[in-house]
């Protein structure tokens, strides 16, 4: 059966994980339960074969045609420039941890980095021998310039690094000729990810001639970077990249990158992108494909694979300012009434695994998980007992109410067009109804939805954080820190002890950080400020017919979807043509 789905939001780096069927009748089949297990591939990460060649096609719905701008600080276009053309100082892999639980870091444009003992100064040694694609040498001055540009034009500071943009960064300076020192107004370990991995370095000799206060509107149609690829040709419907023959990782007998050409077509619809993948025309997919087993894998099971690593929780957010939802017993009852496996199977075809109440996404952040803290359980009868013990009585309509007669009847806000969420919420509605809690789903456009969740004008909301980071901290802090009320702390959780834990994190040792996350897991498991339901995943498909070296569950050397930057650049340096 062919499916015609249209994602609600354009992806292409657009956040299209949720999908909307354009044709009800085309989609009006039963959602066949599909195999949710990830397949494993044989390829490893660092298998340089010494050969160069091939043309790799990327398949990722962009939702709109390309604008042929490559400004790495423009969130609507930067997925086509970061990783390909622009590179970070160090690569932080959010899917891999060292033995002590810290994320795995690979030096990139910097060769090393070190923190001062109080974690308020970060010194980075800049790599020598790297050149910009126009032949100009890359120096520490370019790094200095990039970070100063974020200060000169606050619209570029997308990770809010600088103190003027409410971040901790207060200064950046050269030390000697090849070192850059970042100074912070507080311990700032957690900002390492944003400074080292999430900030692409731009060439001073090109960008300094532009209006420094309007760099955010710079078109950058012919990007000059240090990355493995050169943007060769761009039209509305395709971007063609050719390998950078002077790439700094290349050595005699060890060419990097090995794939000669990369094409990135603009796909306006999920359907056309899925069809292109299924026909075997593209090799690297970041697509949601319903019935992936029959539609994609079965056409060439030995070469086609998928892997959906979970990175974020999709949760039910109770508005804690609501007197009924502010009652712990009600939240416990809701959590116990929901069968997360059922939601995962029926709402997400099993592609998104069930979540747990500690807030730690598994298996991705396994190192941070402590099973003894986990309180997740599906137990409808205990849910009712909890409500009764808290003084709620079941009315004649089967809905529990408190002594004042207030019924446990709520609306859940969700985003219209996110059909998988609608299906999940249907399961949740039925399960809550079974324990005497009535919920009604209210779909909104994503824009008003964002405002309502931020402003707290909702009773319950179904949602997730937009980005993951190297560890659960990067998801849990935006969710629970009281300073994030009004932005990402939808449920309006406020606890000075939890805030203190988050504040300690950036100055703590790895062992202490693990302790902190365990304590926050305890808060999640005992206080239930929000109720994780399933784990959101990265969609990723790959075909080994022409290329090897893909990230796999056994070798998760980078976040695999092509829109994940700068991970895409790491994947591009690892891929090799097979004959």
């Amino acid at each position, binding site marked *: 059966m*062919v499916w015609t789905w249209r994602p609600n939001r354009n992806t292409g780096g657009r956040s299209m994980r949720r999908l909307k069927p354009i044709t009800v009748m085309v989609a009006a089949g039963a959602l066949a339960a599909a195999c949710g297990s990830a397949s494993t591939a044989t390829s490893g990460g660092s298998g340089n074969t010494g050969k160069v060649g091939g043309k790799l096609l990327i398949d990722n719905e962009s939702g*709109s045609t390309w*604008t042929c701008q490559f400004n790495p600080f423009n969130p609507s276009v930067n997925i086509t420039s970061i990783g390909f053309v622009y590179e970070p100082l160090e690569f932080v892999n959010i899917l891999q941890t060292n033995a002590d639980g810290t994320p795995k870091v690979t030096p990139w444009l910097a060769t090393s980095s070190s923190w001062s003992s109080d974690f308020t100064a970060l010194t980075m040694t800049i790599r020598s021998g790297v050149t910009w694609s126009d032949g100009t040498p890359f120096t520490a001055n370019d790094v200095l310039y990039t970070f100063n540009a974020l200060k000169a034009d606050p619209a570029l500071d997308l990770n809010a690094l600088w103190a003027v943009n409410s971040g901790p960064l207060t200064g950046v300076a050269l030390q000697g000729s090849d070192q850059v020192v970042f100074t912070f107004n507080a311990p700032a370990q957690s900002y390492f990810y944003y400074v080292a991995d999430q900030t692409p370095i731009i060439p001073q000799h090109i960008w300094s001639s532009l209006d420094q206060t309007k760099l955010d509107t710079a078109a950058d149609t012919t990007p000059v970077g240090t990355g493995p690829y050169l943007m060769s040709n761009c039209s509305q419907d395709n971007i063609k990249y050719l390998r950078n023959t002077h790439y700094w990782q290349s050595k005699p007998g060890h060419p990097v990158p090995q794939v000669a050409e990369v094409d990135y077509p603009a796909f306006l619809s999920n359907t*056309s992108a899925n069809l292109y993948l299924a026909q075997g025309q593209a090799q690297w997919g970041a697509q949601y494909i319903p019935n992936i087993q029959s539609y994609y894998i079965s056409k060439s099971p030995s070469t086609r694979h998928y892997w959906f690593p979970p990175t974020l929780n999709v949760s039910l957010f109770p508005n804690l300012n609501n007197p009924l939802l502010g009652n712990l017993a009600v939240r416990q009852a809701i959590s116990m009434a929901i069968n997360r496996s059922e939601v995962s199977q029926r709402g997400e075809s099993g592609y998104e695994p069930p979540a747990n109440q500690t807030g730690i996404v598994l298996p991705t952040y396994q190192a941070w998980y402590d099973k003894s803290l986990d309180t997740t359980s599906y137990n409808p009868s205990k849910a009712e007992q909890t409500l009764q013990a808290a003084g709620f009585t079941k009315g004649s309509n089967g809905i529990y109410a408190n002594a004042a007669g207030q019924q446990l009847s709520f609306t859940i806000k969700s985003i219209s067009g996110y059909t998988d969420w609608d299906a999940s919420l249907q399961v949740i509605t039925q399960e809550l109804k079974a324990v005497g809690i009535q919920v009604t789903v209210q779909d909104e456009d994503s824009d*008003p939805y964002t405002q309502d969740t931020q402003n707290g004008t909702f009773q319950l909301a179904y949602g997730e954080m937009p*980005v993951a980071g190297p560890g659960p901290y990067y998801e849990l802090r935006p969710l629970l820190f009281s300073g994030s009320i009004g*932005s*990402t702390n939808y449920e309006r959780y406020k606890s000075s002890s939890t805030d203190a834990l988050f504040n300690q994190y950036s100055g703590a040792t790895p062992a202490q950080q693990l302790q902190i996350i365990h304590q926050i897991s305890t808060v999640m498991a005992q206080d239930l400020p929000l109720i994780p339901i399933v784990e959101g995943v990265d969609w990723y498909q790959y075909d080994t017919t022409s290329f090897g070296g893909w990230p796999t569950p056994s070798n998760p050397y980078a976040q695999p979807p092509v829109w994940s930057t700068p991970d895409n650049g790491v994947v591009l340096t690892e891929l090799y043509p097979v004959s």
Partner: protein
Amino acid sequence: MRYVTRRVGLFLITLWAALSVNFIIPRVMPGNEASAVLATYRGVNPAALHALQIEFGVNVHQNLILTYFQYIANCLTGQFGLTAQRVPVLTEIAGKLPWTLALVGVTTVIAFAIGTLVGVVSAWRRGGKLDGILPPMLFIVATFPVFFVGLLLLYVFAVTLNWLPLSSNYSIGATPSLTLPFIGDVLTHAALPGISLVVVTAGLWIYSMRNNMITTLAEDYVKMGRAKGLPSWRIMIDYAARNAILPNLTGFAMQLGYVLGGSILVEYTFSYPGLGYLFYTSTTDHDLPLMQALFLVYTLAVLVCVLLADFLTAGLDPRTRDA
């Protein structure tokens, strides 16, 4: 002359009203560009909200009256600024306009030709076989929403039979050029959206044309023509159809608004990258400058067509000039 000045005056007043509505509506829509970017693009740190608000001037409070006059001035001078993706609005529109213009233009002409012709012939042979089948059938189809017809065609010809492409304006990887294979590729991609538009609009032409024809055929000058022994095709075309077509010409302009509106739905259904699809994405992205410019383009297209139709009617029918 008085007729022309009056029409032009009315055109200007309507344009001003449309511009003002265009100014107000996007401003009362919930949400803003900064939160739309966060909601739209993947992997953007929520902390970027601050940066994005600065970029799009979300929290900058401006004098509304002053903004209004600036906006009118910008509209008149064609300065539409940058889209939320930081592309000049005019570049973006210029890139998509040809596709919609070709799609809507060609389908409207085809629908007009088919509808008018079938109307003429079926009225001429009133009660005949053709008259019994085509007009009722097409008129029923014309009441279907255009996206419904589009989805139906999509399901039959693209999904089930796999004869025609599902979406887009040409094959992925094809290089635009004036060669036969590429033109063929474009035509196969335009077929389904085009047919959807023709099918739902042709019926309306038939209806009005057939009715006008029947009235006209009862006129004395038609009888006179017959009495003179003129060939029947000449009576049909020169005597009857020429007079009966007048209301359809005015309708042509009215229809254009309907077709343009329909093209938004059709382009969305078929992911056809024209103005309609752009309109859709600009709305979901809360892209104020793009939305306003597109609205202006659509309004202008309809208003100009209405104006031209008025002039054309005046040229064809002397009676209207005194009105």
